[in-house]
């Protein structure tokens, strides 16, 4: 019986595991995608982390700390998944710090008010979940398993965001205005999280064939809009799109055109917070070098001491 080939595995909807043979391009694509996903999680700690010290109640503070902590965990799971493909976390971080690998552009927008924490939970995490749920069935086993864990933990993130906005929207006029302003600013960037339109997404077809991607960008974007519009009604908040309406014929919400030129600008490094996010991240990494080195040195000394004693 012949060795099960990569193509057969994919055809049977099987899972590729780390030590299996796989095409170089598949490996490279996965490393790039998983690393970018991991980078997004850890850069994503910053916009919400910005409000931990100022959270308006101790309950909210605890929830937010736990949520930002989860994002560190998600980054960690994803780096570990990438490492099964033969790269080191340190190298991936280096690529992030030197700008050779990207992270999700959504995190280059500022959190200007407390309501932004709610909008990130509801819209950004909501969009992330729509993107991520299909990844739990990704053809690469370690990535799929990491995503199962991420999705399980993520489920509280969206709810807490919705709860924040619901409370604000039903609170004082100033709170309502804060919530509406946050949704106005985060709506379009959230739609951009699904990537360029299908006819302008050159690598999508190959990723679909490889079972890394299960649905097209536009399909997922539509799914997100369909999910979110009725939730906005419950919140009592409007979405900043005059063209948004129910399309009876298609059975979906129709929505306006996303300004992808803005996305291109943010990806190019010209978003409102690109420089701040990188400076924060690189600063933390450099400030921690002496600590990492110390732990390594101590471990070597301890090993030598144990050996000497034996």
């Amino acid at each position, binding site marked *: *019986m012949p*060795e*099960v080939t990569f193509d057969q595995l994919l055809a049977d909807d099987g899972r590729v*595991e780390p*030590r*299996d*043979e796989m095409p170089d391009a598949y490996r490279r694509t996965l490393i790039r995608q998983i690393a970018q996903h991991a980078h997004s999680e850890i850069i994503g700690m910053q916009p919400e982390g910005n409000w931990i010290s100022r959270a308006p109640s101790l309950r909210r503070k605890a929830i937010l700390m*736990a949520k930002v*902590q*989860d994002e560190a*965990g998600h980054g*960690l*799971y994803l780096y*570990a998944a990438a*490492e099964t493909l033969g790269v*080191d*976390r*340190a190298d991936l971080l*280096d690529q992030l710090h030197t700008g050779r690998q990207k992270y999700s552009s959504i995190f280059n927008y500022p959190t200007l008010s407390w309501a932004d924490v709610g909008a990130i939970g509801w819209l950004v995490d909501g969009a992330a979940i729509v993107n991520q749920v299909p990844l739990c069935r990704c053809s690469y086993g370690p990535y799929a*398993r*990491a995503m199962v*864990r991420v999705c399980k*933990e993520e489920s509280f993130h969206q709810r807490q965001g919705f709860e924040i906005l619901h409370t604000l929207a039903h609170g004082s006029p100033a709170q309502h205005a804060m919530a509406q302003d946050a949704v106005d600013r985060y709506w379009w960037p959230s739609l951009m999280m699904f990537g360029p339109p299908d006819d302008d997404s050159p690598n999508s077809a190959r990723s679909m064939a490889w079972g890394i991607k299960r649905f097209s960008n536009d399909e997922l974007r539509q799914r997100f809009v369909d999910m979110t519009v009725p939730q906005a009604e419950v919140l009592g908040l409007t979405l900043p799109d005059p063209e948004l309406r129910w399309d009876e014929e298609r059975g979906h919400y129709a929505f306006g055109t996303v300004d992808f030129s803005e996305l291109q600008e943010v990806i190019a490094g010209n978003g409102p917070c690109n420089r701040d996010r990188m400076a924060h991240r690189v600063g933390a990494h450099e400030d921690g070098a002496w600590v*990492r*080195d110390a*732990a*390594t040195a*101590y*471990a070597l000394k*301890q090993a030598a001491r144990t050996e000497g004693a034996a």
Partner: protein
Amino acid sequence: MTQWPLWEVFVRSRRGLSHVHVGSLHAPDAELALRNARDVYTRRQEGVSLWVVPSAEIVASDPGEREAFFDPADDKVYRHPTFYSVPDGVEHL
């Protein structure tokens, strides 16, 4: 640039069950690996016991030898209870 070694983490979710692999992490040594495992992988009451093993210490079978390793078991159906027919009416067998 020094990178702490990689460790594999196994969690016993409750007493009576085996430790199951849940993921990996980086740590400079065994003591911190165990504590990092607690902080990373048991934040939601996932476990009552932890193992950490240096990833480099895992000995794995080779996918290229999968057939030689695992296929010979395919035809030993007599190892499974369903291989045997039991007359109607016989219980506790």
